[in-house]
Every structure is written in structure tokens, then in C-alpha cells.
């Protein structure tokens, strides 16, 4: 089998690499605009909570270049863009829900004219005091979804009976996606109410459905097309929809093409982020560092609507065990409503927050016992006999994470460096080093079972060229390339004969978002199913011709062959068409063996787990809080890699993005609920010099034990959580100031936060 693979497992460049470096890869804003295209700007709410009395848009309507000003009253269908509950309007009506919420839409001849006009509005809002923080929402008792919990055993007595106990409150910050390409959509009206929307979205189907809902037309009249995104990271899963729907609304109203590209400051202000959370934790353990019981309450700041918060906070709960067996456990959650833009998907989808809370507890155990945190981590890993997660799924391949940790401990020279760092810190009063090795176990599958499906459409033409379409979207992660490699090897042809085409709802309908790291698992399988259908037809035809068994037909080296009979793939295609054989097929795939019952809190929500571990070293100036990551070693499990270059890129990029989340990226809101860090000038995203020169990433060898595509594993999200090692290393450095004390460092570990923590645990020593 493997010797017939010419493309799968090879480190081929991204399908658009040549276009990217040449500047010829078209993003939505680069597409040629139809004649007379109009441009949009949004009027923003001047308050976070209150009654909208008057839009104050007379001057806007009179401004130069303005063609129309649209409000909620101009929506022909339902004013609702919510992906799940009916709780989020396209444009505000009687109440405003967050600072900067779209309240009207300006349509003008140029983008500048639209933006200038939007500024002329004088909206009147009867303001109310907004809920900005988690504590505000807790005090008001407002939530967007019901509380939810799962666990095992009776926690209160188990905690009381545990020999040792630690408790705390841990704040975990949110994160701005900062996809380099901001939110953008171009809507082009067609005949009979048809609408074509080019949207930078991870979820073309949802854009299609919501546009149809907004316009009040059947879904069959709306097409959403997405060739590529300039980054997304979850920020374009549910939240690309609003801008596409606004463009479609304007195109419907004016009968002209309309484009909306958000200004970056607006984009940061009015699109959702990673959920910030407060973890209230309580852990019982023994003198060996073994966990006896955990009580964990995750308070999530969801913003003004449900959006994807059910799945996000559930996934935080699913990952609050990380890779550890928790004998008795209660994991509870609150989905708090704040008067802020709805928080949304972000790479890891809540998982990182749950996992970070667990790692804080592990550190707390180690600190209180004077043990190396790595020893506490290893002692509590899932293992035979101790392999059931708090939600009832068995971890049957925990040997993978044991092996990864053991290998990394050796190759990163953890123990030697631990001793060196202790010696360094003993003689260095101000500069302190820290080291941490942390594991990742990440569940793969959408926890909403219905989303675990995918479709593809494969056409073979008379010259043997192949046109490939599937429901997955390309945001830089290399999905298109990986699937093209799969298809080329299925047919045994060169990848240059496989034409990758833009994702469109007109070709593959009713798709799931490209999310949950599952893009290749799902769409790759669907594409293979389509290929095999066509191959079966070609093989049956060749078998008749050659009077042999169809099973003996081999597709390789650009040809079909059986024994000494051979026909080029091109000739086979041409003659099959003459014989009236269809060379077009859809393919469909649904992930098997998923049995999650949310109401019972039991089942198997994940098809499998992806594993990894990272070892990070930091140095911190305890007088200023300034710090650097000086070395990173990673060992990560991608199963059998479909493309090692792409997978390594996902690991490197995911790690650095996670590092940003936990160190420099800080979202600051004022008491009016207004985001004050709404540009990269005030919101610090990692740059090249923030990444250490020693940054070594290795792939853990081994096949996926489940029957995934070529036994590969998903890679999009899991590596982000490898960066927890950086946060733990910073805590480790702080811990050296006052051994035995719980380090009161919240995330993100900005220099200010580090300084506050240092002063708190070692008040007299340095300051």
C-alpha cells in the first residue's frame, strides 16, 4: 500500500505557496469588484447596555456619497444571526447589547464616504450600568445558558477525607484572534432574489443559512463561496456571518454588489474573543502527590448571547482533567452573560482554559509538597485501571502520553536543567529561571454530534484531470493541500492533475464549520469516499474490458493496470465517458462510535485523543516582571502525518499563539464595557523576537489507533495548549522566590502580573 503513495506523508508545500509569495492569491478584498460595487460602514452603539431611543442618523443620510442607510426595519426576513438560540440580532432594535454593537448600516459609493458618514450619527441610548466583569455578572445572576455540570463520586466527603487540600481562585484571560485578514464579505445580487456571497468564513453553510433567514428567501437561493481566509482561528466560525449578512442585506436593498471590510479597530472592538474565565478550585491529595478529589467551578464570561458558548464551555469542562485521572470529581460551569460582544470559538474552543486550570492545581500540589511538578504530573497520568475520564470515556491509549513525556524528559535534559536552574536561582537574587514540562491530551470530534459529518464532490474529466471540492475551508492550515494529496494518491495520479476549487455551498451542501481540528479527518474521508466510488466504476469498466476481477485493478503511476494490462488514467477516463459511465461522485462521511449523552454527562464524545508535551524554560527579572522564553522543546503526536511540513507548521504556530495568550496578550475593558486594547499597538501579539532561537519541534512516531484517514491525527488546536508549559515555567520562576507558597499568578502573565505576584509572595525580600 505505502509504496503506491506518491504524495501522502510528503512535506509538500502549501497548495497556494507560489501564489502567496507572488502576491497573486486572492482574498475576498482582492476579488475584482462588479461594476458599481457599493461599500459599507457600520454605525456602532455608544453604550454597552440600555434602551436605544433614537439612531440619530439624519446627518448620515444626507452625507456625500451615501446611497442608503439601513436599519433593523429594513430587514425583510428575521433579524437574527445567532448560530444556535434566537438571541442575537443583525442590527440592534430596542436595546443595545454591547459597546460597538452594529445599530445601522451605511451604504455609500466609496468605503471612505461610508465611514465618514457613519461618524455623523448621534444615537441616543438610555444607558444602564453594564455587566463588564465576571463578578458583575455573578452579582446580577445573569447567564446566557443554564449551568451545567458532570463528574463522578461524592466530592465533598472525598475532599474532607483527603490527607491534604489546596484551594484557590484563578483568572484566565481571553484572547483576540487577530487573523491578519480582517472580517470581510462581498455580496452580489442575482436574478429572482438569488444572492452570491464571498465571505471570509470557516462556515459557508451557516453564512448561507443566515443570509437566507435575514433576506427571507429559501436557502437554495443563496450561495456562499470561500476560496481562502487570511487566518481565522475560530474567529470566523460563527462570527463571519454578521458581516456577510450585512453585505447581503445591502445588496438586496440596492440591487448592487456590496462589500464590507471591517476596519481593524472596529474588528477588534466588535467581534468576540476567547472566553475569559475564573476557575474556583479545590483539590484533595496525599503526600505522594496523588489526586484524591477535585471540585472545579468554571465561570465563563460569555458576553451578550449564547453564540457557541455551550460547546466552548463544555469543552473547557472536558479538558479540565487534561491527561490526569481524577478519582472523585465535580466539574461545574456557569455561562455568564455580560454586556459585551459575544465570546466565541478560538483555537482549542475552551479546552485550553480547562486544561490550564488543571495544571494550576497540579502545580499547587507540587508546591505544597516541595515536589518537582513533573513528578506530580507523571504520578497522576491516566494509566491502566485508572483510565476513565470524568465524563465516562475510557482513555485506552494513555501509553502514548507516558512515552511522549518520558522521551521529552530525556531529550530536553529536564533533570539536568532542573538542577542547573536551582543552582542559578540560588545565586541570582533578581533574575530567576523557571522550567516546566507539561502534557496535552485533546479530544478530537465536535462534541455536538451532528457536526461530525462532511461531504465532497469529485469530478473526473475526459482528459483525466480532476476537480476537487469539499466542505472544508482553507484558512492557512493546509487542508486543501492535504486533501489534494489524498485524492491524487487515491487515483494514483500526479497532484498537478488535481484542481483544488473554492468551497461553495452550491457544490457541497449542509456542511459543518471547519473547526474542532477535524477538517482533514472529516473532509479527507469524504473526498476519499467520492474517489473510491469513481474508481469502482472505472475498475468495473476495465475489468469487463480485460476480463479480469475488478478487485485486481490497480490505480498507480497515472494508470489503471491489472497484470500486464495497462491503460493511462486519461485514456480510461475518456473511454469510460464514451461508455456512458459517470465520472462524478459525491462522498459523505460521518464519524463513527460517538455516543455523548449530554443530559447524563456520560458517553464517548471523542473519536480519539491527540497528545503532546512541551518543555519550556524562561528567565524573569523580578524587579520589573520582564521575561523571556529561552528554550522550548516539543514532542507532539499527529499520528501518521499526512504532510510533516504542514503539521510542524501547525505545532510551531499553535504554540506561539498559545504563548501569546498566556503572556503578552491582555484584553483591557473600561467600566463602560469598552475594549481599550483594540489595535496591535496596545494588544501585544508575539513577534519573531519573542520566540526563542532554541525552538525544537519533533513529531512523535506512531499511527492513530482509530481508523482515521491514513491513520493520521488532527493537529489544528492541540499544539496551542503546549504553551501552558511557558505559563508553568513562569510560575516555577516565581515559586523560587518563596518555595512552598502558592504562586498567585493569573493569566496572562504580563510583566505587570508577574510583578504583582512576586510582590505578593515575597514582599520583603526584593521590594
Amino acid at each position: 500500500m505505502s509504496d503506491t503513495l506518491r504524495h501522502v506523508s510528503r512535506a509538500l508545500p502549501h497548495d497556494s505557496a507560489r501564489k502567496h509569495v507572488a502576491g497573486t492569491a486572492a482574498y475576498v478584498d482582492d476579488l475584482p469588484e462588479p461594476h458599481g460595487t457599493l461599500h459599507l460602514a457600520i454605525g456602532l452603539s455608544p453604550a454597552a447596555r440600555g434602551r436605544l431611543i433614537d439612531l440619530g442618523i439624519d446627518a448620515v443620510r444626507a452625507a456625500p456619497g451615501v446611497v442608503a442607510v439601513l436599519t433593523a426595519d429594513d430587514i425583510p426576513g428575521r433579524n437574527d444571526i445567532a448560530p444556535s438560540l434566537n438571541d442575537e440580532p443583525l442590527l440592534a432594535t430596542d436595546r443595545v447589547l454591547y459597546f460597538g454593537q452594529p445599530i445601522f448600516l451605511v451604504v455609500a459609493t466609496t468605503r471612505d464616504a461610508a465611514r465618514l458618514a457613519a461618524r455623523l450619527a448621534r444615537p441616543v441610548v438610555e444607558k444602564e450600568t453594564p455587566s463588564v466583569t465576571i463578578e458583575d455578572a455573578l452579582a446580577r445572576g445573569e447567564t446566557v445558558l443554564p449551568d451545567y455540570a458532570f463528574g463522578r463520586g461524592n466530592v465533598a466527603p472525598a475532599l474532607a477525607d483527603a490527607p491534604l487540600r489546596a484551594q484557590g481562585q484563578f483568572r484566565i484571560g481571553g484572547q483576540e484572534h487577530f487573523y491578519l485578514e480582517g472580517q470581510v464579505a462581498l455580496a452580489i445580487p442575482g436574478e429572482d432574489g438569488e444572492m452570491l456571497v464571498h465571505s471570509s468564513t470557516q462556515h459557508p453553510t451557516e453564512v448561507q443559512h443566515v443570509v437566507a433567514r435575514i433576506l427571507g428567501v429559501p436557502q437554495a437561493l443563496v450561495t456562499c463561496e470561500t476560496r481562502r481566509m487570511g487566518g481565522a482561528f475560530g474567529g470566523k466560525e460563527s462570527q463571519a456571518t454578521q458581516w456577510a449578512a450585512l453585505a447581503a442585506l445591502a445588496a438586496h436593498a440596492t440591487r448592487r454588489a456590496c462589500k464590507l471590510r471591517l476596519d481593524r479597530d472596529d474588528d477588534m472592538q466588535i467581534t468576540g474573543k476567547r472566553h475569559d474565565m475564573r476557575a474556583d478550585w479545590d483539590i484533595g491529595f496525599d503526600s505522594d502527590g496523588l489526586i484524591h478529589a477535585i471540585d472545579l467551578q468554571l465561570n465563563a464570561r460569555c458576553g451578550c448571547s449564547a453564540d457557541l458558548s455551550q460547546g466552548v464551555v463544555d469543552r473547557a469542562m472536558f479538558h479540565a482533567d487534561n491527561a490526569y485521572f481524577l478519582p472523585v470529581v465535580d466539574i461545574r460551569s456557569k455561562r455568564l452573560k455580560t454586556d459585551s460582544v459575544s465570546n466565541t470559538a478560538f483555537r482549542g474552543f475552551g479546552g485550553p482554559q480547562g486544561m490550564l486550570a488543571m495544571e494550576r492545581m497540579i502545580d499547587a500540589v507540587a508546591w505544597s509538597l516541595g515536589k518537582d511538578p513533573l513528578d506530580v504530573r507523571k504520578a497522576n497520568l491516566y494509566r491502566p485501571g485508572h483510565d476513565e475520564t470524568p465524563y465516562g470515556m475510557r482513555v485506552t491509549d494513555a501509553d502514548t502520553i507516558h512515552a511522549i513525556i518520558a522521551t521529552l524528559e530525556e531529550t530536553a535534559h529536564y533533570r539536568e536543567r532542573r538542577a542547573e536552574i536551582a543552582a542559578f536561582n540560588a545565586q541570582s537574587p533578581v533574575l530567576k529561571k523557571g522550567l516546566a514540562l507539561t502534557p496535552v491530551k485533546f479530544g478530537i470530534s465536535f462534541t455536538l454530534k451532528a457536526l461530525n459529518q462532511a461531504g465532497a464532490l469529485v469530478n473526473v474529466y475526459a482528459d483525466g484531470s480532476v476537480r476537487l471540492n469539499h466542505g472544508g475551508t482553507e484558512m492557512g492550515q493546509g487542508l486543501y493541500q492535504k486533501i489534494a494529496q489524498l485524492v491524487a494518491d487515491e487515483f494514483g495520479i500526479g497532484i498537478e492533475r488535481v484542481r483544488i476549487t473554492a468551497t461553495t455551498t452550491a457544490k457541497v451542501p449542509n456542511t459543518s464549520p471547519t473547526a474542532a481540528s477535524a477538517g482533514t479527518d472529516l473532509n479527507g474521508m469524504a473526498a476519499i469516499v467520492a474517489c473510491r466510488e469513481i474508481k469502482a466504476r472505472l475498475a468495473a469498466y476495465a475489468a469487463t474490458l480485460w476480463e479480469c476481477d475488478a478487485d485486481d485493478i490497480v490505480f498507480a503511476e497515472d494508470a489503471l493496470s491489472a497484470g500486464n494490462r495497462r491503460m493511462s488514467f486519461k485514456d480510461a477516463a475518456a473511454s469510460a465517458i464514451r461508455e456512458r459511465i459517470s465520472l462524478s461522485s459525491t462522498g459523505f462521511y460521518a464519524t463513527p462510535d460517538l455516543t455523548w449523552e449530554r443530559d447524563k454527562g456520560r458517553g464517548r464524545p471523542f473519536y480519539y485523543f491527540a497528545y503532546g508535551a512541551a518543555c519550556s524554560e524562561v528567565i524573569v527579572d523580578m524587579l520589573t516582571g520582564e521575561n523571556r522564553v529561552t528554550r522550548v522543546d516539543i514532542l507532539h503526536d499527529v499520528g501518521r502525518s499526512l504532510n510533516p511540513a504542514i503539521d510542524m507548521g501547525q505545532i510551531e504556530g499553535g504554540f506561539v499563539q498559545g504563548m501569546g495568550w498566556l503572556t503578552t496578550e491582555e484584553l483591557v475593558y473600561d467600566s463602560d464595557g469598552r475594549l481599550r486594547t483594540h489595535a496591535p499597538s496596545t494588544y501585544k501579539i508575539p513577534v519573531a523576537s519573542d520566540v526563542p532561537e532554541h525552538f525544537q519541534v519533533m513529531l512523535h512516531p506512531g499511527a492513530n489507533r482509530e481508523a482515521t484517514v491514513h491513520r493520521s491525527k488532527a493537529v489544528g488546536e492541540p499544539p496551542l495548549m503546549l504553551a501552558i508549559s511557558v505559563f508553568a515555567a513562569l510560575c516555577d520562576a516565581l515559586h523560587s522566590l518563596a518555595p512552598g507558597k502558592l504562586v498567585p499568578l493569573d493569566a496572562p502573565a504580563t510583566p505587570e502580573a508577574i510583578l504583582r505576584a512576586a510582590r505578593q509572595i515575597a514582599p520583603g525580600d526584593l521590594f
Partner: protein
Amino acid sequence: MASVTMTVNGKTVTATIDPRTLLSSFLREHLRLTGTHVGCDTSQCGACVVHVDGRAIKSCTALAVSLDGAHVTTIEGLASDGHLHPMQEAFREHHGLQCGFCTPGMIMSAVDIVNRKGAMLDEHTIREELEGNICRCTGYHNIVKAVAAGAQAMAATKVAAE
């Protein structure tokens, strides 16, 4: 409205434009050179970097009319006779890209670094010099490798040409 004449990728262009037109808008909307991307709108992310008279600038905060008579090179002007520039080839070869949105600006900055600092760039220098270009996808690892390799390829090409 104001008249502006400049040389873009070797061709002389003259246009009458609103004096507030940014160079990035002029390139993208008037000349349809959409390889220059606008990421942050405020001169921080570096997706819009082009060369003006041989030096890298961020085109999203330069006024086109202020560059009357200038020679501008964009990402589209880097390749010659259908052959990628060595730095473009290095980014492709070393997987120095994912979503590709930062790539044109990243490459224009990288060429500028080599022009200013020579081809023998150590990793520390490359990382510091790239601080004005944000990439959200790659973690910079392969970008740094690509810049180092591209710099050497540029030197080799130059030697070959001489």
C-alpha cells in the same frame, strides 16, 4: 483632486486622485495590485510593506500624493521574467507561510533587511528586524529560516550576475 506620477514595478503611472488616498489604496484600488495587503490599517502589522526608492515602508500610512516621482516596488514587481525572486522562492521552499496574508509584506521586509544588512544574517538579527511584521500563523520559525536562506540565495544570485 490631485495628480500624481510614480513608477510602479518599472512602469510609469499617472493618476488624478483624492489627496487623502493612501499608497496602499492607490496600489490596490487604482492599479489593481492586490498583493499588497492591508491587515491592521495602522502601520503595525506590516502586511502592506512595499519598497519606495529602494526602502521598505508601510503603505497603509503613506499618502500616494506625497510620493510623486518615486519608484515603488510591490510584491508583484519582485519576480522577473516569470522567475520568483530568491526571497520568494525561499519562503515557498521553507514553508514560511500558512494563510499567506502576511507573506507579501514579510518578503518585502526581508528583501529590505538584506539590502541594508547584507546576506550574512544571524538569527538574532533576522528576528529583531522582523519586529514590524506580524504573522499569526507560523510562529515565525520557518519565516526566519526562509529569510536566512533567501538572503544567501540573493547573494549567490548577485555573484552569478556579476
